[in-house]
């Protein structure tokens, strides 16, 4: 499952903006049909989702907060894709990053700003090494990265559970770790907004006051910065050129003097570091701790879908991530509002990915249409 696939993956994702939009529309359409069959009014349901995301500043903030880790895991998947690698391991790399962020955020005693930087460095390094394992196994032993990263995801999950359960890190009477120190927190004015002065000041600005009711943090800014960095590395540096060359045609790249094996490892290390940063951003900005995981949380798997919908480009990822954030935040609101199952969101996402996987289908639809038109014109 190697040679032909990688080249096809690339051709599939170049210049597919139109197909992506059509796929999203089909996804929403299938979601509507499923809702209709189940006896719900799809217009009402989508209406609730829309107003559930856009009707209040707080809601918009929440949707962006939901989108943030997905944008970053999406970047991780996209980065590997461009080198011809399928990083299904973003899930595990995210877990490792989150775990290391919680550990260093709790155990290290450092001044405010420096603490954050150190936590990010440690999380990115650990998750980078975790991703690098898959790269190394592929380069050295020819183990396909899809299989090795699936294994590494589960190893990461149980490793997380093991570490969270350790004495001194686990908060008694809970299934989670202690919370990170305030010096590592990246929330935006989280103490000030609850103080008397903060409340008084905010009461003059209803928009800001409502916005600040969400756990607003610097995560989204970091995600945008990372998107910029990924774009820059891929498109403006020698390293990015080499990585993409390997993705296009590894034999040609090798002939041209590029170390294919080294590129594979480098790409997986960077992809891992990115996914790890997603975990770190989530811990420092939103959860402040890590918990025992009964199942995969899905940040990495959603990241794959984000990357596919974003056509594996840095900025496509930002938009696809925001779409996901909106769907994931707005979706559950139809549960309370309509008693309609919120899992319709997964059906919509699955359908979008499904149709993105088969651009041939949409092409066929388009040619059928133009053929028909051609026939009638001919007559």
């Amino acid at each position, binding site marked *: *499952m*190697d040679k*032909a*696939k990688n080249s*096809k*993956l690339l051709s*599939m994702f170049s210049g597919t903006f139109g197909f992506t939009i059509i796929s999203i529309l089909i996804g929403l359409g299938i979601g509507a049909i*499923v809702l209709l069959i*189940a006896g719900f009014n799809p217009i009402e349901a989508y209406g609730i989702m829309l107003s559930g995301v856009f009707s209040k500043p707080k809601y918009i903030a929440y949707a962006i907060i939901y989108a943030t880790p997905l944008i970053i895991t999406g970047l991780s998947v996209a980065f590997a894709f461009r080198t011809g690698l*399928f990083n*299904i391991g973003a899930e595990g790399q995210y877990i490792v990053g989150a775990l290391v962020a919680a550990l260093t955020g709790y155990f290290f005693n450092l001044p405010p700003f420096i603490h954050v930087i150190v936590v990010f460095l440690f999380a990115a390094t650990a998750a980078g090494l975790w991703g690098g394992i898959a790269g190394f*196994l592929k380069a050295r*032993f*020819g*183990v396909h990265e*899809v*299989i*090795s990263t*699936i*294994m*590494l*995801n*589960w*190893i990461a999950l*149980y*490793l997380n*559970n*093991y570490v969270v*359960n350790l004495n001194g890190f686990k908060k008694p009477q809970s299934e989670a770790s202690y919370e990170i120190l305030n010096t590592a927190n990246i929330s935006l004015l989280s103490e000030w907004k609850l103080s008397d002065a903060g409340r008084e000041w905010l009461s003059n600005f209803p928009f800001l006051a409502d916005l600040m009711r969400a756990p607003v943090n610097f995560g989204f800014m970091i995600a945008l910065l990372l998107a910029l960095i990924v774009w820059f590395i891929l498109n403006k540096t020698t390293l990015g050129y080499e990585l993409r060359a390997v993705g296009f045609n590894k034999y040609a790249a090798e002939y041209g003097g590029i170390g294919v094996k080294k590129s594979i490892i480098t790409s997986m290390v960077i992809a891992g570091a990115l996914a790890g940063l997603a975990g770190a951003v989530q811990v420092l900005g939103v959860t402040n701790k890590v918990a025992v995981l*009964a*199942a*995969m949380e899905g940040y990495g*798997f959603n990241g*794959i*879908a984000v990357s*596919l919908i974003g056509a594996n480009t840095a900025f496509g990822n930002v938009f696809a991530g925001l779409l996901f954030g909106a769907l994931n935040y707005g979706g559950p609101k139809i*549960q309370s509002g309509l*008693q309609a*199952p919120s*899992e*319709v*969101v*997964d*059906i919509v*996402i*699955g*359908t979008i*990915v*499904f149709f*993105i*996987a*088969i651009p*041939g*289908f949409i092409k066929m639809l388009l040619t059928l249409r133009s053929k028909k038109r051609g026939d009638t014109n001919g007559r």
Partner: protein
Amino acid sequence: MEGSLILTIGFILGTTLMYATPLIYTALGGVISENAGVVNIGLEGMMTIGAFTGAAVGYFTGNPWLAFIAAGLAGGFLALFHAIASVSFAADQVVSGIAINFLGPGLALFLSRIFFEGATMTKSISLNDKIPRPFNGIFPQNSILDLIFNQYATVYLAFFLVFIVWYSLYKTKFGLRLRAVGEHPKAADTLGVNVYKIRYWAVILSGVFAGFGGAAMSIAVVSNFRPTLISGQGFIALAAVIFGKWKPQGAMLAALLFGGAQGLTVYLGGTGIQVSSQILAMLPYVITLIVLIGFVGKAVSPAANGVAYEKGER
């Protein structure tokens, strides 16, 4: 003391069989699909929809075998979409599989909420309506034979199906064609084998088996469906396929090994022995990784596995 050791072994073996069974069904599905040249990482989603369908049909009809078959059909139905994408439209099979893994659990939970008053957990089926245990009461209670062999019928059916799949793959014309399609589709096509048709059937069958695997979990091992019931077993089954070198008997042994790790975890969890269950749970994946490294240089995967076949392509 000696007696209790034997009983302990009996308990672990029995638990191993119980937990290995869902994996065996699903891994057999993977073996069929991948031998025909279609990678199926959607097994997880197909297993989940099977687990839900089994639990729901079992609850409403009270007939466990009807529930089991319905679960297979549900898995096969979901697999049909994977077949359409990866066979007819030459889609990237991994991407299509990922779509299936969104659709399967999404549909399962959606339907659960519709049929079970908004709950993501189906109502438990009564003990009498679960898959029967053919050797129940034949051996003295809690004797070693009872602990090992007093299993649900799905356990025995799984081993029987391993034999059937092995026989079909290696001793029948259909099996030969199926493997030919996975090794060298162009050659098979030249000889008049319908590559598309065989791949369609292989993928649909893999979904049927994964659906069985889900039901073997939801109406035998436990008695209802819940969101975390399958979580990852489809992926473990996929690991078993590779670990077992794409052969039914190999996949079965790998599933038994993974089931054994689970059985040991359950046993140790009950004894308070200071071995972390988390570390034990991690073992199957670590072993698989190590085994994969050992595969170096040996071409064991079907040659055309994961490669879409397009007629007339040079």
